[in-house]
C-alpha cells in the first residue's frame, strides 16, 4: 500500500501536521496554489518548532555568538572554535527528549547518533561526549525504567561508536515525571582549513545520498517532537527510530576519508525531517535549486511513498554535493565501508525544490522561502513571578545533613551511570567524570587539552529564570576554570514547556537574557545550540532547563588541577567575594533534601566577580600554586569539601564559621572556589583586593571535620555518596 500524493488537503490533515490555519494560509500565499500531500509534509517538517525555531528565534538572536576565536557560530551543524596550531574544536548539544520518553534506549541512542553526526559532518573526528539527563522523581513508577534505558542507550551508541564520555548531569524532579530530558553533547577536532559546511555551490552537480537505507522510521517524528504529549501518546509509537552505531562508525570513517580526498563540496547530515531538511538547507544556503529523484533513494522497505521518503528519519544518513570527477573514488570509499552510495539528484539554478517519484513531480516549491520564510513568532510572555521569600531555616546537625545530602538522589555519585560509558577510549582522557570538568588531551599535541562541562540548576531557573540562566553559564564557566582551563565558548540546549503559554514564554525570554548577559560578561560566546519546547504533559510543564555545555582550553595539562586533595597538611583556601556573603539558602539543596522545602530566590550571580575570581583561580593553577581546585555549587562548602576528600581519600579539618553553621556550610552563594596550597606556597597567594582569599582549614587525616560537627570518616562519606544510585537501580 502506498500513500498517494493527491490526497485532498483538509483542515484535519493540516492540523494533524501541526500547522495552524494562518500558517497554512502563508503556504497558500507563498506557492499560489494548494500544496500536494507531499508538499504539505515538507512544509510541516520545515516549519515545525524543531526545525524552524519559530518561537525562539527572535530571542536567540540576542545571544552573543562571536568572538576572536569563533570560526563558526550557530547556523551550521555545530559551532567551530579556534584552539590554535591550525586546529579547531567543533561542538554542539542537542535534545532527544520526546523519543527517549517513548523508547528510552533507542531514543537516547539515536540522540547520541544525531549529535555525533552533527560533529563529523563538519569534518571533525569526535573526541568527547557528554549527556545531561533529567528524570522524574525516583519513586515515580516510570523513572527507573527510563534511567536504565536512557543510560544503556547513551552507552550502547557512544561506546560502540568509540567516543569517550567525559561528563554529564543526572537530576531527578517530579516535574520531569511526564517528560524526561536527554541532552547529548559531542565535540570533535578538525583542522581549521578542513572544515566542511552545508552550503552547496555549483550548478548541475551530483547530490549524493550516503549511509544507511531509508525506512519508515520516525515518519512524522519531527512533528511529534514539537507536540505536547497527551494521553494518545501510545498511538505515536510506531515512529520510533532505531540506531545503528556500527553503521555510524563506518559512516564517520568513510566521510573523513572522503573529505580528505577533496571530493566534497557540501555535506549535511539527515537529522530531523531527513531528506527534506538536508536538501532544502544545502540548496537554500547556496542560492541553488535542488532536484531529487526518489526512485534512486536506497530504501529498505517496499512501496514507500514520496511523502514517507521525504519525512523519514532513518538514522545514519548523509547528503553531499560532490565534485563529479571524483564520483568513482567516492563511491569506492563508501562501498569499502559497506555503505549505500547513490546519486539522487542534482543542483539547479532555478531556486526550486523539485521532487520526482515514479515519473511524477510530487513537489515543486520555492527553496529559499521554505527555509527563510518559516513563520516567526513574537509570542506573548509575562514577567515571571518573583519567588516567595525564604522563611527561617532551622539549624542542622552539620554532619548528619552532609551525609544526607551526599546520599540524596541529586548529589550522590553518578558512578553507576558513567561506568556504563567508555570514558577512556582514544587514550586521551585526562579527567573522566567525577570531577568538575572532563578533560581530553589534544591528540598529537604535547601539552594541550580541552575541558568540557555541562551545567544548569533547573530549580534556580524555576524560581528566577534570569538569575538561573546566568547561573547555568557561570557554573559551567567555573567548572572549566577549576581545571585550569580558559573557557572558550558554549552551546546551549533550552528545554522548556509550552511556549504558547505566556508564563513559559516568560521563562524562556528571561533565561535567554540571563544566558546572554553572562556569556557577554565572561567572554563565553554561544556557538551552537538547540531548543526543545512543549516538554509538557497534561498541562504540567518541566522545570525550565537551559543546559549549558562549555568547552575550555588548557595550554599545559601537566599543570591541570583536579578536585582531589593532593596531599596531607596543605592549606585549604576559600576564594569568593569580599564583604558579607549572603549565606544563601534560598532554593538550596539543604532546604530541599533536609527540610523538603523549595523556597526563596536562587543565589544571585555577580558576573564581574565571577570573572575576577575565575581568572584568579586559573592563574593559581597555571602557576602551579593550587594543588587542587573545586568550585562550590549544590550543597555549598560542605559538599565541595566532602567531594575533595572523597576524590583523594584524604580528610580535612575546617574551622567553624560563626553561629549560623547551616548557612555557612550549606549556603549556595555563587562565585566561590576551594583550592589547596602547600604551606611553602601559601605566601604566594598574591592578594587581589577585590577577592576574599581565606585560609579555612588544613588537609590531613582520614576524616572530614567541619566546625563543631562530629568528624566523619572519608569511608563513611564515600559509603553515603556511592550507595544511593546502585541501591536505587537494584544492584
Amino acid at each position, binding site marked *: 500500500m502506498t500513500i498517494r500524493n493527491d490526497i485532498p488537503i483538509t483542515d484535519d490533515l493540516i492540523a494533524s501536521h501541526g500547522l495552524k490555519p494562518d500558517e497554512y494560509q502563508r503556504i497558500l500565499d507563498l506557492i499560489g496554489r494548494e500544496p500536494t500531500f507531499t508538499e504539505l509534509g515538507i512544509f510541516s517538517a520545515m516549519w515545525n518548532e524543531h526545525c524552524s525555531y519559530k518561537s525562539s528565534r527572535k530571542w536567540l538572536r540576542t545571544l552573543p555568538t562571536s568572538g576572536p576565536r569563533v570560526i563558526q557560530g550557530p547556523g551550521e551543524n555545530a559551532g567551530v572554535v579556534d584552539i590554535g596550531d591550525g586546529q579547531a574544536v567543533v561542538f554542539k548539544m542537542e535534545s532527544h527528549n520526546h523519543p527517549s520518553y517513548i*523508547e528510552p534506549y*533507542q531514543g537516547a541512542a539515536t540522540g547520541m547518533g544525531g549529535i555525533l553526526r552533527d560533529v563529523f559532518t563538519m569534518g571533525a573526528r569526535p573526541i568527547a561526549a557528554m549527556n545531561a539527563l533529567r528524570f522524574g522523581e525516583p519513586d515515580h513508577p516510570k523513572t527507573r525504567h527510563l534511567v536504565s534505558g536512557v543510560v544503556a542507550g547513551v552507552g550502547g551508541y557512544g561506546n560502540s561508536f568509540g567516543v569517550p564520555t567525559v561528563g554529564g548531569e543526572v537530576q531527578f524532579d517530579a516535574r520531569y515525571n511526564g517528560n524526561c530530558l536527554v541532552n547529548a553533547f559531542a565535540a570533535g577536532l578538525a583542522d581549521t582549513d578542513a572544515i566542511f559546511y552545508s552550503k552547496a555551490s555549483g550548478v548541475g552537480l551530483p547530490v549524493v545520498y550516503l549511509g544507511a537505507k531509508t525506512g519508515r*522510521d520516525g515518519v512524522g517524528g519531527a512533528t511529534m517532537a514539537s507536540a505536547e504529549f497527551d494521553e494518545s501518546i501510545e498511538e505515536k509509537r510506531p515512529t520510533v*527510530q532505531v540506531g*545503528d552505531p*556500527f*553503521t555510524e562508525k563506518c559512516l564517520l570513517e568513510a566521510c573523513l576519508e572522503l573529505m580528505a580526498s577533496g571530493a566534497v563540496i557540501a555535506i549535511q547530515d539527515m537529522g530531523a525531517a531527513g531528506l527534506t531538511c538536508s536538501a532544502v538547507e544545502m540548496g537554500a544556503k547556496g542560492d541553488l535549486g535542488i532536484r531529487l529523484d526518489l526512485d534512486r533513494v536506497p530504501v529498505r*522497505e517496499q512501496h514507500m511513498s514520496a511523502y514517507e521518503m521525504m519525512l523519514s528519519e532513518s538514522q545514519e544518513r548523509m547528503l553531499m554535493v560532490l565534485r563529479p570527477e571524483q564520483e568513482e573514488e567516492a563511491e569506492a570509499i563508501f562501498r569499502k565501508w*559497506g555503505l549505500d552510495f547513490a546519486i539522487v539528484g542534482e543542483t539547479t539554478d532555478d531556486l526550486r525544490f523539485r521532487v520526482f517519484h515514479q515519473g511524477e513531480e510530487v513537489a515543486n516549491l520555492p527553496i529559499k522561502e521554505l527555509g527563510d520564510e518559516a513563520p516567526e513568532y513574537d509570542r506573548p510572555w509575562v514577567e515571571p513571578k518573583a519567588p516567595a521569600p525564604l522563611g527561617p531555616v532551622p539549624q542542622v546537625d552539620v554532619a548528619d545533613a552532609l551525609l544526607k545530602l551526599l546520599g540524596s538522589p541529586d548529589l550522590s555519585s553518578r558512578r553507576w551511570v558513567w561506568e556504563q560509558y567508555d570514558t577512556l577510549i582514544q587514550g586521551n582522557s585526562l579527567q573522566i567524570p567525577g570531577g568538575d570538568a572532563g578533560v581530553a588531551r589534544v591528540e598529537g599535541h604535547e601539552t594541550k587539552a580541552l575541558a568540557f562541562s555541562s551545567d544548569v540548576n533547573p530549580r534556580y531557573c524555576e524560581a528566577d529564570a534570569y538569575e538561573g540562566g546566568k547561573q547555568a553559564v557561570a557554573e559551567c564557566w567555573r567548572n572549566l576554570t577549576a581545571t585550569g582551563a580558559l573557557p572558550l565558548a558554549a552551546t546551549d540546549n533550552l528545554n522548556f514547556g509550552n511556549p504558547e503559554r505566556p508564563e513559559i514564554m516568560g521563562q524562556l525570554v528571561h533565561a535567554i537574557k540571563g544566558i546572554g548577559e553572562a556569556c557577554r560578561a565572561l567572554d563565553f560566546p554561544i556557538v551552537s545550540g538547540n531548543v526543545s519546547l512543549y516538554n509538557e504533559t497534561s498541562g504540567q510543564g518541566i522545570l525550565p532547563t537551559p543546559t549549558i555545555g562549555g568547552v575550555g582550553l588548557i595550554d599545559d595539562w601537566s599543570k591541570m588541577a583536579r578536585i582531589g586533595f593532593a596531599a596531607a597538611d596543605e592549606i585549604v583556601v576559600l576564594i569568593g567575594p569580599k564583604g558579607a556573603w549572603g549565606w544563601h539558602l534560598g532554593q538550596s539543596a539543604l532546604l530541599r533534601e533536609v527540610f523538603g522545602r523549595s523556597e526563596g530566590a536562587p543565589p544571585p550571580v555577580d558576573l564581574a566577580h565571577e570573572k575576577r575570581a575565575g581568572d584568579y583561580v586559573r592563574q593559581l593553577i597555571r602557576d602551579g600554586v593550587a594543588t587542587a581546585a573545586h568550585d562550590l555549587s549544590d550543597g555549598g562548602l560542605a559538599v565541595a569539601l566532602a567531594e575533595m576528600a572523597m576524590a583523594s581519600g584524604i580528610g580535612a579539618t575546617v574551622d567553624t564559621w560563626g553561629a549560623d553553621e547551616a548557612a555557612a556550610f550549606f549556603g549556595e552563594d555563587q562565585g566561590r572556589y576551594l583550592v589547596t596550597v602547600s604551606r611553602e606556597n601559601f605566601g604566594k597567594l598574591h592578594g587581589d583586593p577585590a577577592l576574599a582569599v581565606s585560609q579555612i582549614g588544613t588537609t590531613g587525616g582520614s576524616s572530614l571535620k567541619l566546625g563543631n560537627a562530629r568528624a566523619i570518616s572519608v569511608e563513611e562519606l564515600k559509603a553515603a555518596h556511592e550507595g544511593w544510585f546502585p541501591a536505587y537501580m537494584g544492584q
Partner: protein
Amino acid sequence: MIKARVTVTLKNGVLDPQGKAIEGALSALDFSGVGSVRQGKVFDIEVEGSDREAAEADIKAMCEKLLANTVIENYQVEIG
C-alpha cells in the same frame, strides 16, 4: 511444572541492524539467495504448577512488563 517458549520479534518496519549485518556476513560467506534476515529472541521459561491457562496468562503479563519492548517488538507465547 510447565515449560513455555516466548518468541520476541521486531515489529515490521523497525530497523534491525543485527539482521542486516548477518545478511551481509552470509553473503560474504558465499551463501547466495539469502533475502532478508530478522533477528529476535526466545525465552524458555519454566513455571510451577499445572494450570496451563493460568501459566499462559502469567507469561503474557511477563512479556508485557519485561520480556518484550512492546514499543518495537511483538511476542508470541507457546505453552510446551
